[in-house]
């Protein structure tokens, strides 16, 4: 199969998946959204009825009041499209989401004071990239390097301790390590701030501001890298070992190729899954980590999600839900694409 056709099929699949996923998310939240919309409408009508001019016009006639309420309700239902079937709203919201029309939040504000969700998301994006994408890149480099070393010397003490370490980090909550580090390094030793991204007030000078950012970044970055690189190293080690045991590598060794040439062959064969992992993690890192960000009070996407949940700001919750899901779908697409480019065998299977 040609590369173009492979890409076209993958792209079509991804688009279908995007549509299905956004319809599902829209459907999951539709009942709550409707409930909230109805409550808002009732509240608005009640507020309107407090208007003294309106009250005078009724003259205490209860049927007239009831009629007014019914009429206003019908109007507002029409305005919010509540008169249409539920399925219509589900699909409408899903397609709005696909076009990044997230609308307005209930209460959370973007930095410019508006309730525009797109602006809100964009404002929380850079902190998450600064922390988690940086952490993912460091982790990937460290993990690939250590994993290769472990695979070269498999069975050695280094290899075994790496395996144990990766199991440790697999079972430990990152956010708990964060709490411990805050306790030790911030509270006891006073070396790092207790949380946040900038000092209050932030320094004016750009250089000082940058140093201030690094100072706040150090502890959360260290925490995330420390807990994640073990798993990376272990997976890379396993992929490489699986490649080393293949027959063609044995042949390469048997015919006397120098070790560096052999490693080239190994890496070329082990690259696709590792590259896939890198892509998935880097795109995944854009979503941040809800709990870790909460512990460090880091104003990123994760904390925003948590704020939206606790303040019952449904549009923001849903928008971030779409965002996280889209991120995964797109990451999968790029990962499969890279896999197909690096490993032509995959293309044939389709």
């Amino acid at each position, binding site marked *: 199969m040609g590369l173009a056709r492979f890409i076209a099929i993958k792209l079509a699949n991804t688009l279908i998946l995007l549509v299905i996923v956004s319809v599902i998310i829209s459907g999951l939240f539709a009942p709550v959204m409707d409930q909230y919309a109805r409550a808002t409408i009732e509240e608005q009508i009640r507020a309107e009825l407090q208007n003294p001019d309106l009250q005078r016009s009724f003259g205490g006639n209860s049927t007239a009041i009831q009629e007014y309420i019914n009429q206003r309700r019908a109007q507002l239902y029409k305005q919010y499209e509540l008169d249409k079937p539920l399925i219509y709203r589900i699909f409408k919201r899903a397609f709005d989401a696909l076009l990044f029309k997230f609308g307005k939040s209930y209460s959370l504000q973007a930095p410019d004071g508006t309730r525009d969700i797109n602006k809100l998301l964009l404002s929380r994006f850079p902190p998450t990239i600064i922390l988690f994408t940086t952490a993912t890149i460091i982790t990937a480099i460290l993990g690939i390097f250590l994993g290769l070393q472990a695979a070269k010397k498999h069975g050695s003490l280094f290899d075994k301790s790496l395996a144990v370490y990766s199991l440790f980090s697999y*079972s430990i909550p990152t956010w708990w390590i964060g709490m411990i580090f805050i306790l030790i390094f911030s509270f006891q030793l006073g070396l790092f701030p207790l949380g946040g991204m900038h000092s209050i007030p932030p320094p004016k000078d750009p250089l000082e501001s940058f140093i201030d950012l690094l100072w706040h970044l150090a502890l959360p970055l260290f925490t995330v890298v420390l807990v994640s690189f073990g798993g990376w190293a272990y997976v890379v080690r396993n992929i490489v070992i699986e490649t080393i045991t293949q027959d063609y590598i044995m042949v390469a060794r048997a015919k006397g190729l120098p070790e560096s040439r052999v490693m080239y062959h190994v890496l070329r064969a082990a690259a696709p899954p590792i590259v896939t992992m890198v892509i998935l993690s880097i795109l995944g890192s854009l979503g941040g980590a809800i709990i870790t960000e909460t512990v460090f009070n880091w104003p990123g996407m994760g904390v925003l999600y948590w704020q939206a949940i606790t303040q019952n700001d449904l549009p923001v919750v849903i928008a971030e839900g779409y965002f996280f899901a889209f991120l995964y779908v797109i990451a*999968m697409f790029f990962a499969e694409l890279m896999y197909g480019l690096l490993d032509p065998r995959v293309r044939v299977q389709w």
Partner: protein
Amino acid sequence: MVEWKEIKMKSLEFWRAFKREKLGLIGLGILILLVILAALAPFIADPNTMKEWRNPKYWEDNPQGVPPEWISIFTGKSYAKQEIKEPHLVKMENYSTTRVEYWEVKYDYQYDVPPSGIQIKLSTVIKNPANPPLLIIDFIRPDNEKLELLRKQVTSESLTLNLHLEESVKRAALSFARKCGDVEVEGKSLSEITAPMVMSILFSQKGTGMSNPGKAKPLKGEYIIEFMIIFNAPEEKVKSFEVRFLGRVYGLLGTDDTGRDLFSGIIWGIWVAMVIGLIASSVSVMIGVLYGVISAYASGIKSEILKRINDIFYVMPVLPILIAMAAAWKPSIWNIALLIALFGWPGTAVVVKSMALQIKEEPFIEAAKAVGASDAKIVFRHIMPQILPYAFATIALSVPTAILTEAGLSFLGLGDPTIPTWGQILHDANARLATVRGMWWWIIPPGFMIALVGLSFAFIGMALDKILNPKLVK
């Protein structure tokens, strides 16, 4: 009977292989230890923990926010333990309309660090609420200094007084420290005097620094607290009287700031973690195995649909969805386990599908087909037995993930609120700023236990995986 022998032989063979895996044995050892601890929970920890965890009244008699007893080993100091004493009536004076009762309690103080507080529980009969009895409390130190701590009308028939928090006690302590020449309190206002400072002033040798819990030298000896109660009617009397010297340390793991015994919470939490971890992981692996095998057998459009559904669950952002669901429904622990399972199976399904596809092509399956075995028989008799070992390894390996997910939800305050879980203890610790207050005994043990349980399963799962997946051995 032949089959039974076969199973026995296979398990023995498996055990021999497992015994060679050091990590697996360590994991199994930790797991057995944890199960024993959990089984002993009613005897070694407070048996009512599960029921009363959310009831602050149940824990109010404990000292609040104090570290474990064994810290004295590291600091070399002795800390006041919790002591409950009953004052006794010394003398009584009758006048025309009033009766004065003198009560006292003796406290032999031989520690380096004073109690975290003094709590008085006085229950009385009051005749006329408009003219209640009067209570006066004096504090006499071994160096014969006498402080009037409090003068208060007893307006409630059951009165609980926390002396270390009372305004008048703070005032008395502050002026006493000033009188003794403590320069550290010079210029300090009443609002700057904390409970630990009050207790330090009351129980330390006179001199500068006596208000500083870190510097003060303890004044050991016999302390007397004198109570004078003036009753205004003959029917009025003391029903019960108790003085609690609140411990400076408590139990094996200390208390949180509402006085809950953290050791009890941690021990009972083992049950919760195990239940969540095992239910969530076994249900999700079960779904995954079934789904994988069915997918391997489906063909054409059915196979395509199954693959799509798998993809959809695979890309769903699990934690955000779980958080949204937990916030909307406030689920019980069982529902949380099932929710985690509901989103945990796609990975397993993919692997099982590819395994089943491979097995399907093996000659012995073809042979079975040739002799007329049904699909169901082939799946359950020939394919499942080959997949089950992998399934067990996967169950063990996904326990840590399930426990971490539950702990994360609880940490955000979205867990089952009726029972103690480690994530919830950490949630409370975080909400009450335990990190910036340095209350390490509230933060370290719960996370340590999460890691320990996860680790034991991860070790076991790893060993299983190694035995069953020969490529990884060398």
